């Protein structure tokens, strides 16, 4: 039991940022990202004994995070639709910031918004490959699909994203 506690602490220290980043990019909401992180580690705590291959712990945690994110994000859909406009206001109307910071903020916000228009699967692949720099093997393990499918779906997802951002090459 004590071993388990110290192990979960170690896992939390090692991976909580990864889980949080994934959740934040996936949902674009701090509140949801915190909820996902909490729920993920609750599940990890519960299921830690069931994990057989300790070498796959990173992808295991992230696959839990991914499933939790899909679940929580779907549940919060109505609430999100209502608050979406309110949340959008402060970022663009932030006049007191220097122009270069405002421009930078707008840039990441545009990319994030484009990412949010993608389907869950495509978004996950892009987050894993482009934002978290996970390998194809790791991404495949997180999503539970083959490496070939990751490659194909990644190119398709990128094409869709470019189209949304307005750079259709």
């Amino acid at each position, binding site marked *: 039991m004590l071993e388990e*506690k110290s192990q979960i602490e170690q896992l*939390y*220290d090692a991976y909580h*940022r990864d889980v949080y980043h994934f959740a*934040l990019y996936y949902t674009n909401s701090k509140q949801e990202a915190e909820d996902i992180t*909490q729920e993920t580690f609750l599940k990890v705590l519960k299921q830690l004994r069931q994990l057989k291959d300790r070498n796959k712990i990173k992808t295991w945690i992230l696959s839990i995070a991914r499933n939790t994110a899909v679940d929580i994000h779907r549940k919060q859909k109505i609430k999100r639709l209502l608050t979406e406009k309110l949340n959008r206001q402060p970022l663009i109307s932030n006049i007191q910031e220097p122009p270069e910071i405002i421009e930078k903020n707008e840039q990441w916000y545009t*990319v994030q918004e484009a990412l949010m228009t993608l389907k869950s699967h495509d978004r996950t692949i892009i987050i894993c490959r482009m934002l978290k720099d996970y390998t194809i093997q790791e991404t495949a393990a997180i999503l539970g699909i083959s490496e070939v499918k990751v490659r194909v779906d990644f190119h398709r997802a990128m094409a869709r994203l470019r189209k949304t951002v307005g750079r259709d090459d």
Partner: protein
Amino acid sequence: MGDFDNELFDVLKERPDKEPDKVFSNQMRQQLQKGQIVKRKRVSVATILTIPVTMAVLAFLIMICTGQTLDIKSAAQLSITQEKSLVFTGSLCILIALLTFIIFVFSKGYTKGWFIFLMFSLSFLAWVMNTVHAENQHLEEPTVPTNSKSFDHDQDQSLSLSDKEGR
């Protein structure tokens, strides 16, 4: 991968609110040290309704199995012992299967899902609709053909009618 793609995602990688809140992180760590995470409770309609609906379905099945009568007439009044014992065995099997399934659902914590809620609700609704329908239709005889007198009588009549038409 083009330079444009890399630039695009470099911007997003540097989003200002990327790091988790320190207060939140510390709270989580403390909770993990204690060995339990105090989960933020969310009121779910599905969770609230699943338990009473499950109990209602169970009560209904127990009533069938033990042969207790309902205030509303049951849909089918069984006449012969063989049928009764057959239905009893069948109901008992369904009850055991459903009970096992319900225990599985609750033990795994799937009660939040809308699928489970809908399934229980639909089965409960089907039972209510069936009994109400039976009550309105005043179905006192079984709908399936049996060796009862009334069925034989009807059959005799129809046979004699067809004989007459044949002549």
